[in-house]
């Protein structure tokens, strides 16, 4: 078991999300930075769909009631295991009774904690993700709070060859940054496929979508990010849309002209015009973009999106293979 000693609100059990139940109006949920959670599972040798903990408000303090392997990924939350600082994207053995503490990250937004065997909450509609609005999935359909006891799934007893554990390159280091001509070093660049209503926007708006920085506002959370740019995005002739299904990454433009990126807990359907969609392979970058951060959009195609997806799969495959050499059976 993992005992939650202390948890700020909004931290919850997540996996890669829920698929196949959109016909009931149920969206994906799941980790905002799915790549970080997948990396944690790869380091531990877990199944890719194993659940972990997403920490987005701090502190988060956990105590292990049993010996296990633990991995911390995502934003560098200065994780400490019984006071000992762990580097980011790190896996190491944890002993029964030890405490893991995550603090607010200086860069990035969300940290992930996974254990060998995964968090073994019941699978509800095909996933262990927390569907917080509808109150199901994850740990009792709600955010974590102190006193919660999270079950750990079965896993072979393993430890690491080096008692200090082992780490991996973060995806920021390992993956190519989408190229954007005049982006500043701190800007997060995202590949965007033009969507159904792209052509309905006037020429200056279409140009501004790609040319200007978009600042993440404080009205940004797991449902979606509201962005702010100098030039509002306007349509030539505003028409009322029919409601349709929405996936994470859809960039909607309400009448204000300031776009919203729909994310993990976003509405599964909606009717605002969509100018583009952030490709799946870049959504993890959005999940780590804190308010105030500048986003830049780069045009993309489905073929390039699949290429980006293959690059992610390659990164995770390498991580999984290398981690296999760095773990060993526990004595």
């Amino acid at each position, binding site marked *: 078991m993992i005992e939650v000693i202390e948890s700020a609100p909004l931290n919850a059990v997540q996996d890669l999300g829920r698929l196949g139940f959109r016909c009931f109006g149920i969206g994906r949920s799941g980790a905002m930075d799915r790549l970080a959670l997948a990396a944690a599972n790869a380091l531990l040798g877990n199944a890719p769909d194993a659940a972990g903990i997403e920490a987005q408000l701090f502190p988060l303090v956990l105590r292990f009631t049993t010996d296990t392997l633990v991995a911390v990924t995502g934003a560098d939350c200065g994780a400490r295991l019984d006071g000992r600082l762990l580097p980011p994207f790190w896996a190491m053995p944890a002993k029964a009774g030890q405490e893991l503490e995550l603090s607010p990250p200086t860069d990035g937004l969300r940290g992930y904690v996974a254990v060998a065997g995964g968090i073994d909450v019941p699978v509800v*509609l095909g996933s262990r993700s927390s569907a917080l609005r509808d109150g199901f999935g994850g740990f009792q359909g709600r955010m974590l709070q102190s006193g919660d006891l999270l079950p750990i799934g079965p896993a072979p007893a393993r430890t690491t060859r080096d008692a200090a554990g082992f780490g991996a390159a973060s995806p920021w280091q390992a993956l190519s940054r989408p190229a954007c001509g005049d982006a500043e070093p701190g800007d997060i660049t995202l590949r965007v496929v033009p969507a159904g209503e792209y052509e309905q926007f006037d020429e200056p708006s279409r140009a501004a979508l790609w040319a200007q920085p978009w600042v993440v506002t404080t009205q940004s959370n797991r449902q979606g990010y509201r962005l702010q740019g100098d030039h509002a995005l306007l349509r030539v002739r505003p028409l009322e849309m029919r409601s349709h299904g929405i996936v994470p*990454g859809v960039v909607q433009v309400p009448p204000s002209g300031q776009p919203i990126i729909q994310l993990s807990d976003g509405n599964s359907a909606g009717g605002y015009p969509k100018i583009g969609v952030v*490709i799946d392979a870049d959504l993890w970058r959005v999940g780590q973009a804190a308010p105030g951060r500048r986003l830049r959009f780069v045009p993309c195609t489905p073929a390039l999106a699949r290429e980006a997806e*293959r690059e992610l799969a390659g990164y995770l495959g390498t991580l999984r293979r290398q981690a296999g050499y760095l773990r060993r059976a526990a004595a």
Partner: protein
Amino acid sequence: MSSPVVTLEQPRVSLCGGSALLLEAEGPLALPTQMGIWNLTDEIRAWPGVLDLQPGMNNLLVVLDPLEGDAEAISARILARWAEIPRERALGRLIEVGVVYGGEGGMDLMELCEKVNLSPTEVVALHSAPEYVIFAPGVSPGFGYLFGLDQRLFCPRRKEPVLRPAGGTVMIGGAQCNLGAPRRPGGPVANPTGWYVIGRAQDVPVPFDLAMDPPNRVSLGDRIRFRVERIEA
């Protein structure tokens, strides 16, 4: 005459991301078209590279495997099947719910009346006349988007969403209307919406229950009739 609602002359498939597609049907919002959408949903479910499907209002979202799904090839295949898919299908059961229009539970009734230039009595008469069909799933498990709204009640969504109490809300947004599920114990007290709440339904049946398999207790194609309990000022 120009319509305030998007109407396509030809069906189209557009990108809804690097790995999702949206089929939008041609013509005005119609029941036979939606029957075709439901039939196509059942058929596409078995296609390789397709992970999930979601019917909308005369449209269909197709979620592809980001690695395996070939957006270009599947787009072409969807359009080819759409041209042939039968546009008929049996409707489901009739659900009747009583509604108190206006008052505290329907706080936007007067505002909507001004927008559509009708009296509360006229709005309620037009709203409670048709038998609505559950066309598509909504933003949460429930009664989904309803088809059948009299076009005299069409009213563009608000520019900015507002918070409205959850539970049995009867709402109008654009050319659509809906019925909110009863409030879930422990669930949110209010939800953000750009729609107008014109009434509150009493004794709404629970539309979705995870203790059941399958969990949905209403289905696409089921019908809803609103019975006027009373109109409050």
